[in-house]
């Protein structure tokens, strides 16, 4: 019974934890502009994160080594350091975006300017990362994030022309009035939203925090293969709501308030309150994940003690890195750069940086020295290699359309 409960909890947190500020913004933005014609990019990203997270979860459970240990072991100290710098920069950018997202959500709830909420959000995030037990932190954020299911309810209550919506989803192509570079720019943004590097740092380090063993490989797989696709459905619901309500009005999304409007239209006040709770939970949860991931990646590269399973003073430099990154993230948002803009850039740079962490995991997942009999099977390797190609293409292709379209304008 306890095991069933554990698995159910894992699935629910995986669903609730899947969506963050990047998914919210990218999906609403794309839904309002392209309908569901880019749903394939989200689907591709979800399959990718499943393949990626399954491998790193298995490595964490069997070999007890989190992602960045492997990065340094396989790429060596020099390229590993360059990788650390790039990954840290992207994660830090995402961290800033999440802190900004929390503040924007609180502004919607209170109409107090988001800049005043930024220090509050930062302090709250630090206190949780400093004091709250890992499992409590992960489960609470994940479960509260489930409130975003309200977007599914909203889409259902909007009672859209389902066949037409579905038809959009299965017939990719840029709609009239939108150029092909813009279309691909947003395809990469959606892909980056579903497949952010920090998710894997967090997932694999979390496995070590929770002392996964070989027995937990199955649990980890169920979490990934059930939780993430359902989380991806939430993303698609956000896009669907925007496609049904905002697209016909000629509204393009550039604020978090617009993301929630369809819920107000379809469900009303209470529904919107639930959605705002979901915004806060999803962004705050992701702020914790990205903040810890900054600490994880640096500490794992240098071999320092890390993690919340020891007293903070026993992992002094890990907590110092987390604290410094938090200050930088809060400072970045306080420069008054629009958090939505920060989010959009973080998505594209996520896509650029992804091969750096993906490749070492794929190599280790094939190494019997680490995994013994649990090395990649034929299916895992087929998908692993397929996605290596996809990730490389997305990484190389990310920058030119961004410059060509001035970030999708």
């Amino acid at each position, binding site marked *: 019974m306890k095991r069933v409960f554990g698995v159910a909890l894992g699935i629910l947190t995986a669903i609730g934890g899947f969506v963050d500020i990047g998914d919210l913004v990218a999906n609403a933005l794309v839904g309002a502009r392209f309908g569901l014609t880019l749903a394939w990019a989200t689907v591709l990203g979800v399959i990718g994160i499943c393949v990626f997270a399954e491998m790193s979860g298995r490595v964490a459970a069997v070999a007890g080594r989190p992602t960045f240990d492997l990065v340094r072991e396989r790429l060596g100290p020099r390229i590993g350091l360059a990788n650390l710098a790039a990954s840290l920069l992207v994660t830090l950018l995402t961290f800033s975006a999440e802190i900004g997202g929390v503040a924007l959500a609180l*502004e*919607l*709830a*209170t*109409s107090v300017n988001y800049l005043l909420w930024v220090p509050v959000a930062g302090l709250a995030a630090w206190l949780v990362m400093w004091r709250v037990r890992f499992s409590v932190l992960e489960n609470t954020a994940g479960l509260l994030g489930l409130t975003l299911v309200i977007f599914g309810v909203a889409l259902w209550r909007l009672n859209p022309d389902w066949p037409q919506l579905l038809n959009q989803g299965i017939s990719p192509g840029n709609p009239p*009035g939108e150029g092909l570079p813009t279309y691909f720019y947003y395809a990469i943004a959606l892909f980056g939203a579903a497949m952010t590097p920090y998710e894997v740092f967090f997932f694999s380090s979390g496995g070590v925090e929770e002392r996964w063993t070989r027995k937990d490989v199955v649990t980890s797989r169920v979490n990934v293969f059930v939780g993430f696709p359902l989380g991806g459905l939430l993303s698609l619901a956000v896009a669907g709501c925007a496609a049904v*309500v*905002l697209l016909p*009005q*000629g*509204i*393009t999304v*550039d*604020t978090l*308030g*617009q993301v*929630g*409007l369809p819920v*107000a*239209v379809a*469900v*009303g*006040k209470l529904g*919107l*309150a639930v959605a*705002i709770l979901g915004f806060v939970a999803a962004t705050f949860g992701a702020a914790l994940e990205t903040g810890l991931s900054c600490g994880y990646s640096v500490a794992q590269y240098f071999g320092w003690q890390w993690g919340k399973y020891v007293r903070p003073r026993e992992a002094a430099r890990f907590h110092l890195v987390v604290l410094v990154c938090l200050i930088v993230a809060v400072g970045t948002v306080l420069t008054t750069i629009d958090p939505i803009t920060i989010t959009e*850039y973080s998505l594209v740079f996520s896509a650029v940086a992804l091969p750096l962490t993906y490749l070492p995991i794929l190599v280790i997942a094939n190494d019997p020295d680490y995994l013994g009999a649990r090395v990649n099977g034929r299916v895992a390797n087929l998908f692993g290699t397929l996605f290596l190609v996809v990730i490389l293409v997305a990484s190389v292709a990310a920058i030119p359309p*961004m*410059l060509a379209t*001035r*970030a999708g*304008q």
Partner: protein
Amino acid sequence: MRWLPAVLAIAALTGCVGPAPTTGEYEEKAAHTAADALSQLQTARLAVGNAGRMPASYLETVLVDAEEAFGSIESTFDSIQPPDDPRADRLRSDLDGLLSDGSDGMTQLRVLARRSDAAGLRSTAEQLVATADGLGRFAREHGS
């Protein structure tokens, strides 16, 4: 060439707007401006139309954001030097009229929302239908 990526990044981040040299380009920018402004105006109208279905704080935040964005779209367009061509001048005055109507209306909406004046909000939003239609038509006629 170490500085090149930095320059590219800054250029991309600021999305710098230069003077529009030809009438064709000016027209394209005007159409783009109309579409962007329409998006903000429609956001405000959609929010006001559903004012009873959201907390006051939410309505106010959405209206303030839309008003600010509308203002910055308007001032960006005004900062573009139109080419010396009567057609460009006509484009400019047509769009300017729509933008200033929209901008006045959005300010009015924000003021009324802060006063929780539901009837005032409805009637002001009603008056903005013509502006929204105008912006939509402008964007369609002059867009590529």
